[in-house]
């Protein structure tokens, strides 16, 4: 055991939380799909908000608010132009909404006070609402609760990612979702645990498995509250950065990317050598508090 790692058990048993940070990497939910007249594709999901105690680093519990019992919520996936229908059920203990980043009508924005005439806006406990809009623009977009107090509802765990593929897709790759998040289990307005996909240090003990020379595409989202910026740094390699994923031309070739709250990037990388390569927040405090892991590159 090295100083700077969590004490005791190396990570949290997925059975404890009912979800696994490693599985979340490659768990893309394309929804229930059918073709509409005219050829358009309709995708439907059901997202249920409910309270759940989760373990964020061995032995430290957090009273989370979740979408479908996991943090981050399901990774919704569609192709640009698809029609999306998200059935939201508030089975939690407080009013919530789902606010999707993207282009859509005001009534579908999931903002309190907007769209109430059709049952939208703030969704009270026990109530339901269906958000419906077209998937655009292509890129990587977070979704999150927009109820007040906003920071509190997000910090509790009510967020996830919506990936909208370009009309003709992207080059074939091993794709990974990494949601940077953090938790303040003792409510002192200072996060004690930082992570990718919720469990601090998880990928130190269960490295992300990738293949040498295979294209790896990382969908990176920053949902950390209480801290204005976060970052992602990789050892021994460089990646192409596509800000927000809304262009097919990379904007930067680097080994470190800075993200503010709600910011996201699509990163593409190939590992030329086998071995273990660290990745972590280059805000060193976050790394030492859980936001670090390894890629393990094999033939």
């Amino acid at each position, binding site marked *: 055991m090295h*100083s700077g*790692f969590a*004490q005791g058990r190396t990570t949290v048993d997925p059975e404890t939380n009912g979800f696994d940070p490693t599985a979340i990497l490659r768990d893309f939910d394309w929804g229930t799909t059918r073709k509409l007249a005219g050829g358009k594709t309709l995708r439907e999901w059901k997202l249920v908000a409910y309270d759940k105690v989760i373990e964020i680093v*061995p032995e*430290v519990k957090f009273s989370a608010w979740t979408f479908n019992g996991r943090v981050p919520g399901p990774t919704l996936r569609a192709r640009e132009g698809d029609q999306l229908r998200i059935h939201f059920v508030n089975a939690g203990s407080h009013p919530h909404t789902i606010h999707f980043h993207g282009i859509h009508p005001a009534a579908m924005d999931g903002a309190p006070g907007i769209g109430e005439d059709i049952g939208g806006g703030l969704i009270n406990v026990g109530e339901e609402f269906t958000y419906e809009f077209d998937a655009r623009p292509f890129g990587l977009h977070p979704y999150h609760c927009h109820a007040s107090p906003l920071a509190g509802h997000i910090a509790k765990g009510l967020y996830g990612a919506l990936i909208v593929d370009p009309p003709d897709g992207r080059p074939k790759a091993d794709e990974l979702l990494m949601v940077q998040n953090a938790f303040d*289990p*003792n409510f*002192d307005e200072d996060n004690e645990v930082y992570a990718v996909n919720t469990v601090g240090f998880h990928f130190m003990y269960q490295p992300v498995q990738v293949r040498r020379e295979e294209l790896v595409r990382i969908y990176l989202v920053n949902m950390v509250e209480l801290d204005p910026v976060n970052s992602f740094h990789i050892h021994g390699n460089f990646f192409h950065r596509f800000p927000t994923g809304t262009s097919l031309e990379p904007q930067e070739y680097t080994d470190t990317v800075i993200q503010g709250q709600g910011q996201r990037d699509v990163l593409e990388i190939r590992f030329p050598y086998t071995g273990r390569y660290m990745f972590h927040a280059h805000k060193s405090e976050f790394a*030492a*508090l859980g936001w670090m892991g390894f890629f393990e590159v094999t033939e």
Partner: protein
Amino acid sequence: MIGRLWLLGVPIGLLVAVVVIVALRGPAHASNSGESDEMSVSRAILRPGEIELVLVNDSEDTARVAQAIVSDAYVDFHATSRVIEPNETAHVTLLYPWIEGESYDVELLLSPKGAVEYEIEDAEAA
């Protein structure tokens, strides 16, 4: 008269607000400072490469030390007992390369929740 009643209402209102806030927060399992009357660090003994904390449980609940943080980094530790019964004391030793004369914020995260904080100023070997 109405004006004087209004003045009387201010402190009553403040008292009610404080009671409501305390009720909503619930009983503190552990304090965020080392001065709690429930869980606290009574003193720290520094030796090369380690910080020994004397952790006192004056609460009515059993506490378990889950994790230890020194100046925003998780650190390894061992303890005479990680589970501390009410009115008992444990010695928690953090493995940390502290530097003489510097200051450190120590935080013990408890299981399943709560934390105890302690500040070391002007670190000096025992």
